């Protein structure tokens, strides 16, 4: 089969699934989930078949979708290269397992049709972003993932917070899309094409043709989608959606799409744009880490963690290691999905209780979940030889390497911030681990918790036990882990992550190499120290299974800052409910009072007034009327005599 056709089938399968569910299975809950899961399975199988057969060459192909005039055409096309391969693997693999998990998690939900339809639409849109070969098409699917995200966040739509969160997510994403779209238009007119490969060729031929503005505008899209500063506010609210959604969309794939896109158009980014990304990413790692410490909600904590790790990815891009960012994205997809799924499992077990301090002591009741969570915690904290270690630590090290290689002080700052971020990761993850799983149950619901069904636990095992632990390791030590890996992961997928970028001077190896050159091994030790120190501190500070947050007790002010997320939401809320609304009301006032009232109806009133005056001239007296005549005669006569001209 033609590879393009295969890709098209992969892309269209979820669309077909969504269409079937939307048209026929709106009320057929189980059938809908079956269709959706089968579609996800087909995607996964076909993707891996495709990847295994792929020879590593870039595949492109397109057809015209809309043509107007000679110079404007909107193409539908695929650009399949290394980052696409990685992303495809991640989306297909993680997506499938989360689908499976959802079957269990959504077991008692009455709107399964809507949920699984949404998941299918999401898969479709996400795959579209992965495969798109031009900016226009990226934008199309960009919007569509935004929509599916909106739809899934609003799954519990009878809840006010879900309604608000979905709205917020979509609108904030649109703000990002505003810049994105401007950037696309700019790029399109500047380069005369929206095709990514064509633009690549142009820039390769003439590197001076990069424009900071275009990069920054495109970055807006990334900022919105990947919830970077200052548009990060929507992601934590997005946790209002069902947990599998949080896992798939708001942790593993969609939010990473921003990173993926930045990697795709990496060649467009000027040093200035990169530095901007670097700073925003690095600061986000710390900021989100602190905020995570102030959350009681298990999912919100994870959401901040996601923000922080997106910050890491951004840092990697900012450092100039797009491959590394992709790799971290892949690793993050594994462990963060695991963490979310675990939290989903816990929440499901605790009858939708999300407050960590009402849980506790769950490790005995839910061993599978616990193990998965534990492994993922290690991974996210970048404990050596777990998945996170290979990517995250390399980012920190890469930052140092850049600084050491004399590229500027900004890299030192980036290093410092990311390192602090690593410490914070250990802190909030440790806090979570100890609070949720150790000690004694703190509530009725937690005490009745029990392990979830196989639908949920199997994905936990696959994603958590195996992938979180092994992904990076397999990747890195590919050469001698052949036997194990072959059974689980297609060889090439892992390989791309390494050598797909090594030659691009922006991959994992490049970063690692740079770091090795600097010879600063203390960095490694420091990061280990951070991890160990962080865990120890949390172990002692929070204790096992506490009923309340000790930080909140000891330092309420600080905790409040963390909890309120630096009052970002409040500022935005203030803007929306006061400033924007006042402006809108004022405009509406102008519209109704001035334009509609004063001008339009005012002129009507003036006409009416003049009419009243002229009407009052009809006094009814003959005399009054004869005056008109004599006036008329005089005027006419004067006119004839030339007195009026």
């Amino acid at each position: 089969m033609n590879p393009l056709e295969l890709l098209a089938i992969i892309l269209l399968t979820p669309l077909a699934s969504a269409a079937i569910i939307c048209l026929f299975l709106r009320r057929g809950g189980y059938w809908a989930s079956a269709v959706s899961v089968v579609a996800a399975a087909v995607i996964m199988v076909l993707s891996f078949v495709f990847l295994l057969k792929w020879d590593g060459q870039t595949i492109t192909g397109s057809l015209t979708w809309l043509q107007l005039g000679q110079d404007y055409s909107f193409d539908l096309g695929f650009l399949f290269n290394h980052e696409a391969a990685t992303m495809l693997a991640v989306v297909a693999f993680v997506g499938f397992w989360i689908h499976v998990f959802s079957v269990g998690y959504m077991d008692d939900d009455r709107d399964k049709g809507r949920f699984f339809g949404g998941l299918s639409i999401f898969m479709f849109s996400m795959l579209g972003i992965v495969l798109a070969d031009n900016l226009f098409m990226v934008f199309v699917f960009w919007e569509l993932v935004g929509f599916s995200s909106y739809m899934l966040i609003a799954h519990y739509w009878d809840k006010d917070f879900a309604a608000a969160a979905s709205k917020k997510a979509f609108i904030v994403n649109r703000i990002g899309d505003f810049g994105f779209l401007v950037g696309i238009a700019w790029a399109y007119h500047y380069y005369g094409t929206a095709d990514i490969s064509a633009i690549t060729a142009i820039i390769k031929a003439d590197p001076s043709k990069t424009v900071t503005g275009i990069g920054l505008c495109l970055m807006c899209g990334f900022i919105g989608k990947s919830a970077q500063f200052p548009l990060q506010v929507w992601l934590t609210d997005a946790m209002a959606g069902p947990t599998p959604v949080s896992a798939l969309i708001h942790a593993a794939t969609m939010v990473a799409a921003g990173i993926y896109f930045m990697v795709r158009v990496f060649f467009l980014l000027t040093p200035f744009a990169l530095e901007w990304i670097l700073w925003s990413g690095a600061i986000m790692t710390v900021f989100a880490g602190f905020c995570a410490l102030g959350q009681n909600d298990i999912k919100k904590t994870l959401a901040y963690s996601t923000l922080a790790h997106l910050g890491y990815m951004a840092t990697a891009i900012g450092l100039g290691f797009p491959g590394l960012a992709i790799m971290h994205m892949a690793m993050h997809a594994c462990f963060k999905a695991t963490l979310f799924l675990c939290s989903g499992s816990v929440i499901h077990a605790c009858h939708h209780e999300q407050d960590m301090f009402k849980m506790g002591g769950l490790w005995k009741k839910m061993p599978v979940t616990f193990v998965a969570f534990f492994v993922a915690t290690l991974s996210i904290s970048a404990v050596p030889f777990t998945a996170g270690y290979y990517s995250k630590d390399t980012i920190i090290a890469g930052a140092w390497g850049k600084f050491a290689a004399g590229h500027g002080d900004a890299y030192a700052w980036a290093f410092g911030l990311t390192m602090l971020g690593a410490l914070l990761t250990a802190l909030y993850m440790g806090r979570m681990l100890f609070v949720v799983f150790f000690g004694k149950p703190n509530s009725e619901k937690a005490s009745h918790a029990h392990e979830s069904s196989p639908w949920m636990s199997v994905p936990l095992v696959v994603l958590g036990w195996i992938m979180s632990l092994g992904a990076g390791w397999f990747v890195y030590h590919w050469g001698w882990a052949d036997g194990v890996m072959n059974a689980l992961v297609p060889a090439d997928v892992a390989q791309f992550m390494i050598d797909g970028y090594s030659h691009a001077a922006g991959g994992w190896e490049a970063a690692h190499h740079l770091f090795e050159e600097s010879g600063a091994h203390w960095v490694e030790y420091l990061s280990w120290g951070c991890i160990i120190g962080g865990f120890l501190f949390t172990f002692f500070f929070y204790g096992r299974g506490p009923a309340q947050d000790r930080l909140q007790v000891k330092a309420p002010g600080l905790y409040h800052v963390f909890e309120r997320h630096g009052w970002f939401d409040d500022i935005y809320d203030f803007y929306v409910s006061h400033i924007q609304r006042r402006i809108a009301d004022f405009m509406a006032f102008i519209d109704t009072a001035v334009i509609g009232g004063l001008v339009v109806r005012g002129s009507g009133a003036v006409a009416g007034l003049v009419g009243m005056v002229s009407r009052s001239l009809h006094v009814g007296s003959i005399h009054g009327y004869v005056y008109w005549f004599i006036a008329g005669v005089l005027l006419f006569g004067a006119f004839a005599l030339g007195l009026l001209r």
Partner: protein
Amino acid sequence: MTDFNSLLLILAIVIPLAAAVALLFGQKLCPCAAKFIAGIGFLAPAAIALWLWGNFGEAAKTAGYAYMSQYDLGMKDTLGISLYLGLNGISAPLFLLAGIVGLAAGWQAINAKAERLPQYLLLLLIMQAGLMGVFASIDIFFFYFFHELALIPTFIMIGIWGGAGRRSAAMEMTVYLTLGAMLSLLGLIYIYKASDWTGFDLIALREYVSAHSIADAVQHNIFGLLLFGFGILVSLFPFHSWAPRGYAAAPTANAMLHAGVLKKFGLYGLVQIAVPLLPVGALEWNPLLIWLALGNILFIGLVTIAQRDLKLMVGYSSVMHMGYIFLGIATLSVAGVGGAVILMFAHGLSVALMFVLSTAVYARTGTYDMRDMGGLGMKAPLLAGFFVAATMASVGLPGFANFWGEFTIFMALWKDHAWAVAPAVLGIIISAIYGLRAAAAIFMGAPSEAFQKASAGKAIGDITRAERIPAIILIIGLVLVGFWPHSISTSINEELMGDSVYQPKVLSTVQTPAAATPAAGHAHEESAS
């Protein structure tokens, strides 16, 4: 000349009229007979439009027009007016739009349970006939004539079957739209004069213009007249005050047809008549047009955000979207104008859909005030689904036809007016804000107290078949074009490519005699931005 398909074209106008006449004389008929007659009156044009659309690609064309036929009604020799019908690449999709929306509106109306239903349907049928005529006319006088024919029932329908505040709304709308119509009429007659009394036949006029173009100053004047005349009819900022109030007061089927199809008259006039015949004028008025269109998008967008009344909001949003279309026309390029035409098509479907659904919401909540709603989605999930789809369509989500229009316009706009892109794109945020806010306020969250009180003891069902079918008709149109824009873009593209005005080269040569003014204006905006 008059072959079968040409006959069909005129039948698309005559059948609704005949149905209207039948209803007029058959007022004593039983309601089902009236419904049946009206049903034929709506179904026939839609079917004909689809058929003609399907055959458009293969049809024999003269000067880009297919299915031509001409009838002299007495003014051909003196005023050069004749009933001259045909479809070209731009009018054909809009003709189709008129057919589709007409069918949807007709269906809605037939099931509307309106008081004095036969009269209601009668007026709607007249409107439908006018709409079919507008886009089928080659003669620009009849183009105008049919528009007015379709406009008149609006006033009456608003007055009789309208909602709150209809008396003043109908009056304001009538007076205001008459002003617009009169200005555009003057403009059209002016064209007749400026072209040495060639007549009102668009084909001949184009030939005339290509042979000897109209003097620049005259072009300037005519285009100004047409711009403001059409602008009022299309609710160009700041001439829009009639629209939201009018739509809010209008009965649903009427609002669907008016906002969906009739309003496209002015835009269509600009694309087909004003710009091709008066390229220099278009160029000179362009800067102002862009500013006004941005006013539509930004100012009206913000006003829309402030609306609490669902129907007013839909009305305002429809005004806002006109801004995009004006921008598309202002690009004066194939892409931009093509995008504008696509958006005209798409907006026609989506706004009609919004009106259907708003009415469906009203039927359940008993109010249009969004603050008194909430949580309707739990009781009417399908309605909610439709509504969200409609919102997303009007917000410009890919997969719906609107996206193509908006996106293409943004892309085309950059070429000559890069500064205007950013403010224009701001509109996508604004429309997302009000669209989603409405969806959330109506369908999501917990029911408001007022709604709980109002709906206490009432069974609120999901969308009924009468409401569903128009909605489905419209959504199918939106999605089909959304997924396969070629379906309408091909003919538009061909037509526009044949139009020398929209070609970049020709414009620049045309520009030279009057280059000073537009160039200066342009430079001014560049610095202003």
